[in-house]
């Protein structure tokens, strides 16, 4: 009978060790999947859970915090995920923490990450609903990557063609190789600059004139705007014309005279010859010449008078001012 | 003392009340009719030897009586009740009063002699005290003359000793009827004779009735009050050993030659 008892003790030990090992392993697993111990429930709503299943891990800032307990479909765009989270983590999770669905590794299991928010907020309560952040899932990332890749391919293709063309073009290479061009270009650019500045001035003047004209100011303005003064001007100009014609005739006559005189002188006859030969004649010529001088001076006086005429006075004044300004500007340059 | 002469004194019990009445017992295996309307009556204090050839169904007969085999039809009335309709519980009750000695002894070879003898007691008499149990074991072993083997294992004993231990185990419940299945088979003639004598002694001592299966004529002569000849599934003849020995029936005669 004693042997029987010893055997029973051995058997009891055997069974108990086996069961204890089983219980320990179940407990260790349970600890991992938070089957035992006190938990709180948190909820989060997603549009897409990306293949999350019940039992997936929940991480809080990377710490194993619990598991996904239940996944319910609320409506066609909302899926509510209920999580069991260790109670010990409760003081650290705030109401404004974000929940998102991520991967354990690129191809690993899905996992819910609870991300703390920097903003202050009260501590979370049992059955609270966490705000969610839908992160691009891997599929979407891959899709975007793929279209980006396609674009890159097109671009690089075009680039290749362009580069090839540039390579093959001799003209461009010549241009690139010629160093004198740059100086030319520089000069021309300077000239163009000057020209442009002058054009600018001209345009300004023209602008002024046209503005004046529009406002009936200035000579030209008056000329263009006033009919009466216009006709006056006409007659004045025709007078001038006549006067200058007469002056012309006079000059041509003088020319002829000098020619004749020259001839006469050369050949010893004619007036000039006479004059030169004859002091009397020379005196006469002197008188004529002084007369001519007087005549031109008279013309000059006429012209001066025209200047001071109220009609043309403006114009001449303007001309004078302009000349003066130009001289000034050239001086300053 | 002359045992045979003692047997003749026992013939008075032929008129005692019947303890086993077998009538029209049928048992067949496949198409082989082993027992075909077999009839036998065992009276109180009587011992009947069933003679028959090997495979004639002698063992089947007593296994049907003890309920190890289910008879196809017929009635086996043991101690006033038909056991063919018994359930397991009723069979157990009947088996407390009917002992069975197996041909191969059937000692539990994983147990000591004491445990072997304890076994039926513990099963049948659940409230027996350890002291009474030990007393009974010693008594049974003393009856077969092997009290010193109590802590040995069956494998350490010779065939004859094993047979005696088996007999002691059968006796330990003090049955009213004992069924012996070829008690002397596989033993040398001297040991066989010892066993036969032992059977008779026990018969005397405990006033048991018995059915003995045998084809060992020495054993038959020693133990039998009456001899039944089993032939073709039927009880061909039943009478005392001396009468059958003188029988003119050729089928009976062949056993006694």
């Amino acid at each position: 009978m004693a042997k029987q008892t010893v055997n029973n003790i051995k058997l009891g030990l055997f069974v108990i060790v086996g069961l204890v090992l089983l219980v320990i392993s179940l407990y260790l697993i349970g600890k991992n999947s938070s089957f035992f111990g006190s938990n709180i429930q948190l909820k989060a709503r997603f549009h897409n859970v990306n293949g999350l299943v019940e039992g997936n891990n929940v991480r809080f800032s990377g710490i194993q915090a619990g598991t996904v307990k239940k996944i319910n479909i609320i409506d066609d765009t909302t899926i509510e995920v209920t999580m069991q989270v260790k109670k010990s983590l409760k003081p650290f999770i705030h109401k404004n923490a974000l929940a998102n669905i991520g991967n354990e590794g690129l191809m690993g299991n899905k996992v819910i990450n609870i991300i703390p928010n920097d903003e202050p907020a009260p501590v979370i309560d049992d059955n609270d609903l966490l705000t969610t952040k839908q992160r691009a899932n891997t599929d979407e990332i891959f899709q975007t990557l793929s279209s980006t890749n396609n674009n890159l391919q097109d671009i690089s293709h075009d680039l290749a063609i362009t580069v090839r063309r540039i390579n093959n073009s001799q003209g461009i290479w010549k241009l690139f190789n010629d160093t004198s061009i740059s100086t030319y270009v520089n000069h021309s650019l300077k000239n163009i600059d000057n020209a442009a500045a002058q054009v600018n001035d001209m345009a300004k003047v023209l602008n002024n004139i046209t503005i004046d004209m529009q406002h009936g100011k200035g000579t030209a303005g008056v000329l263009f705007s006033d009919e009466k003064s216009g006709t006056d001007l006409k007659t004045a100009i025709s007078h001038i014309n006549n006067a200058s014609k007469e002056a012309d005739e006079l000059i041509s006559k003088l020319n002829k005279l000098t020619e004749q005189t020259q001839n006469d002188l050369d050949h010893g006859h004619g007036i000039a010859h006479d004059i030169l030969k004859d002091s009397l004649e020379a005196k006469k010529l002197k008188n004529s010449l002084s007369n001519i001088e007087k005549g031109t001076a008279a013309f000059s006086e006429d012209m001066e008078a025209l200047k001071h005429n109220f009609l043309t006075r403006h114009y001449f004044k303007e001309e004078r001012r302009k000349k003066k300004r130009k001289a000034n500007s050239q001086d300053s340059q | 003392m002359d045992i045979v002469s003692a047997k003749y004194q026992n013939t008075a019990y032929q008129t005692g009340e019947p303890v086993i009445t077998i009538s029209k017992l049928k048992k067949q295996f496949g198409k082989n009719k082993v027992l075909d309307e077999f009839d036998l009556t065992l009276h109180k204090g009587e011992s009947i030897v069933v003679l028959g050839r090997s495979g004639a169904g002698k063992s089947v007969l007593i296994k049907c009586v003890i309920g190890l085999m289910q008879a196809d039809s017929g009635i086996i009335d043991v101690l006033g009740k038909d056991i063919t309709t018994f359930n397991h519980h009723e069979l157990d009750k009947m088996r407390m009063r009917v002992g069975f000695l197996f041909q191969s002894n059937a000692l539990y070879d994983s147990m000591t002699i004491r445990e072997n003898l304890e076994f039926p007691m513990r099963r049948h008499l659940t409230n027996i005290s350890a002291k009474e149990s030990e007393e009974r074991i010693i008594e049974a072993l003393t009856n077969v003359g092997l009290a010193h083997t109590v802590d040995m294992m069956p494998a350490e004993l010779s065939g004859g000793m094993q047979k005696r231990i088996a007999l002691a185990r059968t006796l330990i419940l003090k049955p009213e009827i004992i069924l012996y299945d070829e008690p002397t088979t596989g033993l040398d003639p001297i040991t066989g004779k010892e066993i036969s004598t032992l059977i008779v002694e026990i018969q005397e001592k405990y006033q048991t009735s018995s059915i003995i299966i045998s084809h060992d004529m020495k054993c038959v002569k020693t133990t039998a009050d009456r001899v039944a000849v089993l032939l073709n599934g039927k009880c061909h003849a039943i009478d005392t050993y001396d009468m059958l020995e003188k029988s003119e029936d050729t089928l009976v005669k062949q056993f006694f030659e």
Partner: protein
Amino acid sequence: MKIPGPGEEFLNETGAIARFTGSFVRETVSPRYEIKEFIRQCYLIGYKSLPLIGLTGFIMGLVLTMQLRPTMISYGVEAKLPAMVSLSIVREIGPVISALIFAGKIGSSIGAQLGSMRVTEQIDAMDVSGTNPMKFLVVTRVLAATLMLPILSILSDTISLYGSFLGVNIRSHMSVHLFINQVFSILNFTDILPSIIKTFFFGFAIGIVGCYKGYYSKNGTEGVGHSANSAVVLSSVIVFILDLLAVQITDLLGYN
């Protein structure tokens, strides 16, 4: 209906085992309960098998670790060696190797024991001694096998993991704590529970087949050897078939 020889034998045997299982269930639920003998059988079947199953488990864990190591290194995941080995041990190798060794040791011993008891009429003797041999011999052994194999399997898994721990530490260093952490980070209830549940069925099958083969042993001593042999062969095959069924069922239930 005539079915050709082997087929008929096969069907006959299947039906007989099913019937035997049915009577086992009946005898198990009805009193009386052979508790003492059951405990004795638990001791013999469970405790006595521990050294053998522990040894094979230890060697399996060690060998598996050393075999997997080069491959794991070539994939650059040497750190995952404990996880990998523990997963294969707990899910498959532990239960199946334990069950096969158990079938070899217990299946054959039950077959031979009951076979010899049948041949030497010990089973009949029990019946006559007021003991239902189905209860005393079969129910206790089958129940003991059913309940002990899971425990043996758990112990064997543990010893295997110890072997694996040694295997890891032959070439590199890993603390016990990290090893345990690694193992239990990958193990889940769905790894442990189905594999333990299936060992109940393995143990039951081994017990039932061994008992059936022994209980209906024929042809004397030669039959006993045959019983023991066919008990081992049949129960080993059944272990594999059950393993296949188990993986399919757990797969269907989504616990795989």
